[in-house]
């Protein structure tokens, strides 16, 4: 006969229906396991980062404890006074680093301490102190503008 063909829906057997249901359940559980695994990985990583941060601060405290205090205070004062005088952050940073280097060189104990803490004295003044001063003045400039 010439009419359009109509698809006939064949109902799945109960066995096949059960298999399909189990596939859906398994799929759901696999997704759930993956989600929980990812959650666990993130938690472990967060905890590890937290522990690492605590240890890092504790190491910094030890380093500060053996760093001659006068280096830090002389650096702070030199940079502060230079900034008050010139209002120029670059000059202030330079003055602070210069003061730290001079104090470090003149104080042989400071050099020994820096070395024993795993810092090359030049790195301590030229990287650590310089970066700390740069960031400080950047933050201060932001506060002043506000």
């Amino acid at each position, binding site marked *: 006969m010439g009419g359009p063909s109509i698809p006939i829906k064949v109902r799945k057997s109960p066995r096949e229906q059960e298999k399909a249901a189990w596939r859906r359940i398994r799929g759901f559980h696999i997704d759930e396991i993956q989600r929980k695994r990812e959650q666990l990985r993130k938690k472990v990583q967060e905890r590890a980062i*937290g522990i690492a*941060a605590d240890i890092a601060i504790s*190491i910094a405290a030890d380093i500060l404890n053996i760093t001659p205090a006068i280096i830090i*205070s002389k650096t702070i004062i030199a940079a502060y006074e230079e*900034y*008050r005088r010139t209002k120029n952050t670059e000059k202030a940073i330079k003055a602070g680093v210069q003061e730290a280097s001079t104090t470090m060189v003149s104080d042989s104990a400071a050099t020994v301490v820096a070395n024993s803490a795993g810092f090359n004295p030049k790195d301590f003044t030229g990287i650590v102190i310089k970066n700390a001063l740069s*960031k*400080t003045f950047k933050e201060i400039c932001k*506060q002043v503008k506000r």
Partner: protein
Amino acid sequence: MGVEFEEYFKIFIKNLIIEIIDFDLRKNVSLSDRDRKEILRKVSAKLDSIIEEIMRELRKENILRPDMLKDETVSSKVREIITRVLERHF
């Protein structure tokens, strides 16, 4: 200066601690750049309240003045307070 000495001191001490840690972490070759930054972010967040505590203790001693810090005994006292508070928490 626009910003008081105390505020300048507070910001510098926080940055100094972070820079010491950053320098130390960079020596650890097995640490990825991403992890190092994550640790520093966490350190910075943890330090905020600790630095406030350090400042409170320093204010109590009334030694946070540029002219006073030139004295070696005073600067040692300042360092002692900073490390004592840090050690109390970490």
